[in-house]
């Protein structure tokens, strides 16, 4: 696979995974946008351009998977927190299960190849 094809492949892979990553980031506790971006940026190769996360958050909100609320901050402007809705939690559970099964499937294919 040449560099261009590999870049294209990683872009396609990231496309699907970024949404799952965003939902998992706010699964335990509500977070504001900047903090979500910061956490996702810490994961290697997941976020190439930080701004990409904001249209995804907007779309997740429009889909009813997350909702938002404003909270005052002592260190700057009021922050918009994102949290999972009940539907978002259900969808995330299903998405994580699907991801796990895919991960296992790829893992078993690799094991077979090694034998």
């Amino acid at each position, binding site marked *: 696979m040449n560099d261009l094809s590999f870049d294209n492949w990683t*872009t396609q892979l990231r496309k699907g995974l*970024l949404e799952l990553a965003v939902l998992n980031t706010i699964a335990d506790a509500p977070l504001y946008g900047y903090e979500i971006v910061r956490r996702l940026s810490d994961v290697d190769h997941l976020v190439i351009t930080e701004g*990409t996360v904001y249209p995804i958050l907007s779309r997740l909100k429009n889909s009813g998977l997350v909702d938002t609320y404003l909270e005052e901050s002592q260190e*700057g402007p009021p922050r918009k927190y994102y949290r999972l809705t009940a539907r978002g939690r259900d969808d995330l559970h299903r998405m994580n299960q699907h991801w796990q099964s895919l991960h296992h499937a790829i893992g078993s294919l690799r094991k077979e190849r090694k034998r």
Partner: protein
Amino acid sequence: MIEMTPAARERLDDYLQRMRSELRGTRSVVADEVEQSVREHIEIALAEAPGPIGATEVISVLDRLGPPERWLADEFMDRIRTAPDDWRLAYLAFGMFLLSMLLLPAVGAMLIIPAMIASRAYVELARDRGEPLGARRWLVYPSIAVVLAIATGLLIIGPPLPFMAWVFDHRRYDQIFDVPHSEPGRMRFIAGFGAVVFGSWWILAAAFCAAFLRSIRFVFAPLLDGLRRQHFAVLAAIGAVVAAVGATLIYYRY
């Protein structure tokens, strides 16, 4: 609200305008909401920087956010695309451009404007869909570039050229100004007069264009997306130098 220098504010405004332009028309994303989130992101990122925040700090945050043109293209362009790639308007714009070149001067000059409007419409359509122009830029850029070149030429020449022609027609300047009778003195006066007129016009034109920067960028997008007030400041500075040289020549015409 963080305090920014005018240059930093201009960079941020330009970035947000590009972002709005990219997100406009996308059904799954609320552009205002994304803009509000991006503003919050920038304010938090720069909260601890000493004010007023300069362009360098703002650019560093914007670079990390990345070009808005890539946000949708990278992540979910496929989902929001409302129609398959359609090259018809681009072909139409290019066809009108070719025809205008073939029918120069009179009919061609009239056709270049609709060709340019069709090209701009196509650029906006592609932006609304979050599609990069790709190879289609070769179809839509020529007419925009030609109109831009004509507009730039008119800006440089402006009213001074016909004015100079009127003044120098039948040596009318002899009746208006105190012009030396010797040939070298006359030449110095003519050169100096021309330099003062053109230099002053460039200063005025630069001020006018700087005041209408956004409109000019919009009309000639995407070719002038990078146009800044500093470019007109350079034009005004050149105008001032040329006018000063002209005034000196007139002063020492004898």
